[in-house]
């Protein structure tokens, strides 16, 4: 009987090791692919075969060819070049937005969780107000008030997204606060800032990072959505959402104007979502059990 149990445990252990190895392999692979995507995006102005802003009306709405891999838009601009450069607007802005909401939300959440009391209640009620509105509708309202522009779209989305991180961070802080090592740190004379930076943040950062990585795909979609509605990037800035919106009426006549940016969004969002999932598998201890 004991032998059977031992065998089961060892085979479970073997399976866990195999699973973990696969997860790490997936993580490295996805990190490499994301790295390539970010590198291409970052250096896209150097890589593009045509000036993405240069109009050539005599070549308007040309289908994909050797000269123009993904065809041209109605202004005769090369779609491939615009997709590459458009990645800068879409991906880098989304990463900036995720960075902003993660840091602001986490800072607010940590402050609330650590300080507690009336301050906590007051800030959490404010976050409740933001959470009470349907997210995208609120973002559309804010972006409409501020006017068009990618930065205004970032502000609009930041307004609706920070409370999620604030609540998450607060919850994590509250659970860590009861741990003995926090009491030990207090007894040893550490001040609040030191406790937060050295003892609380390292313990909650994993969860926050996994959530942030899972959110990148959603944020890309939301930003592209606002641009699609004309509330994001302004012409002639190439942005995948606004490119899709501009080509929408040509879906039947010049489908490449919609399919190319649509495919770019699909691949990017899928890549970031897979990366987020894999990061969770690797970093979250619960999934290892």
């Amino acid at each position, binding site marked *: 009987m004991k032998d059977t149990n031992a065998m089961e445990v060892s085979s479970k252990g073997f399976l866990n090791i195999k699973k973990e190895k696969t997860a790490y392999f997936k993580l490295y692979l996805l990190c490499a692919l994301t790295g390539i995507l970010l590198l291409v995006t970052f250096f896209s102005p150097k890589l593009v075969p045509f000036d993405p*802003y*240069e*109009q050539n*009306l*005599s070549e*308007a709405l040309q289908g994909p060819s050797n000269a123009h891999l993904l065809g041209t838009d*109605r*202004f*005769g601009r090369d779609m491939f070049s615009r997709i590459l450069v458009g990645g800068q607007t879409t991906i880098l802005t989304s990463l900036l937005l995720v960075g902003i909401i993660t840091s602001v939300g986490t800072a607010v959440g940590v402050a609330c969780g650590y300080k507690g009391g009336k301050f906590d209640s007051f800030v959490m009620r404010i976050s409740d107000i933001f959470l009470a509105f349907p997210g995208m509708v609120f973002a559309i309202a804010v972006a*409409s*008030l501020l*006017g*068009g*522009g990618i930065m205004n779209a970032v502000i609009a989305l930041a307004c609706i997204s920070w409370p999620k991180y604030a609540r998450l961070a607060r919850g994590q802080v509250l659970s860590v606060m009861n741990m003995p090592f926090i009491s030990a740190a207090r007894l040893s004379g550490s001040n609040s800032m030191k406790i937060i930076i050295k003892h609380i943040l390292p313990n909650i950062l994993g969860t926050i990072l996994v959530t942030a990585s899972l959110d990148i795909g959603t944020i890309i979609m939301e930003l592209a959505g606002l641009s699609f509605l*004309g509330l994001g990037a*302004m*012409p*002639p800035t190439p942005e995948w959402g606004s490119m899709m919106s501009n080509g*929408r*009426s*040509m*879906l*039947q*006549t*010049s489908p490449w104007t919609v399919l190319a940016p649509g495919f770019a969004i699909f691949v990017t969002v899928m890549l970031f979502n897979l990366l987020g999932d894999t990061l969770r598998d690797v970093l979250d201890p619960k999934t290892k059990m």
Partner: protein
Amino acid sequence: MNKRYRIFSLFITSILILAMLSGCVNTGSTPQEKTFNYGTMAYGVAMGNVGLNPHEGYSGWSTIRYGVGETLFKFNESMELEPWLATDYEQIDEYTVRINLRDDVTFSNGNKMTGEAVKDCLENLIAVHDRAPSDLQIKSIEADGQSITITSNIKVPGLVNYLCDPYGTIIDMEAGVTEDKNVVGTGPYIATRVTDTEINLISNDNYWNGEVIVNNINVKSITDGDTLTMALQSGDIDAAQGLPYVSLQLFQDDPDYTISSTNTSRLYQAALNFRSKLIQDDAVREAMALSMDKEGFTSVLLQGNGSPAIGPYPANFTFGGDAVRADEYDIDKARDILEDAGWIDSDGDGIREKDGKRLTIRWLTYTSRQELPLLAESVQATYKEAGIEVLVNATDNFRDFLQSGEYDVYASAFVAAPTGDPQYYFTTHVVDGSDYNRGYYRNDNVEKLVEKLREEFDTERRSGLAVEIAQQVLDDRAYIYASHLKMSFVMRNGVAGFTAHPSDYYEITSKLDIDK
């Protein structure tokens, strides 16, 4: 049991046979009702024309377009006046006009259209409408049998033209306006249901001007161009107005569809804001006028559904087309003018500077007219070639920006000659302080000429004055006129008597027919 079962079976079978035979009975010679489903982008809250009450905003456009009402006079294809509910008019003196009415017109509720009814209608119009009182300047209306006499506060040479504006649609004030903004008119159709998104109509059996062929019409507001295209393709609607230009080519070569197109006076224009320091520079305005590629915009981006504009009026008006001169597209000349004026690209980034100020134009426009963002993007590229940077703000929240003055250029669409007369555009766009003078333009000579135009009754001299004013506006580069719109109706085969009109007023008439 068996016998009872047989009797029951026989009874059921007999009932079923009788029911089947009753379906074969000849129900007489009731002809099949004809129904026309029409999808349009031009009806809805955003257009300011919901409902059918002509005395409210732009709703009169819907009253006329959908065949519910008619005006005293109308425009023909050449935008010349023709009698409609009236027979003729007589200019008694410079302030008084007598209009004689037809004797055979009844409203759709059977009431006769008399001088008194027309008087009531026009009096209500000037009491409640926002634009009509200042256009018509009516002091008093006298009714006498089948004629009315209108006396004006000031000389209004274009009075009869103004009465062709859809707000001049004659409705029965005795019947009034219902809560859902329905009215009783004299047109070939009667509205049975009016909402912000749909109007249901039935034929007016008492129509005074011949037989009405189609029995039912459903006008549906479809504000998304792709939805409209697919609705026509799927057969949900029989005809469509306002299809995106790129969709038109889907129907152009398809033998199952017919397209009716016409040039209109709908104008795409850019008003230059004279309150902006940058725009006050003559060289900048001239370079901007020279750098707009109107030909490329109309032929490629509008796919031929527009014509390059020289002045505010299209070529089918005597005072329009090449009656005026404007700057032609010439980037090299624009560069030279800017260079001579001291605008030089000192940092080599392609954009010129002067006294440390960058030549950046804030271009404000809106998206509900699909052509305007295209114009903005087209200009962005051509202006850049001349060394001018354009920051586009294409937003439907544009009114806030207009109010705050945060723009150098405001690009918009406007029907320049809805009354077939030139005065309307000048009094709304060019005169100092006028409603749509978004560039805050003022020129004393233009003010004097418009005053003259207000008092001139002779048509030829009015045309001459219109040309003079338009030329002055062009010389001052107060506006840059991009193009005039070509309007198209697309319909499936089997629809007849449905043609686009240059005035953009008349759509559904008694001549409309459909094969189902």
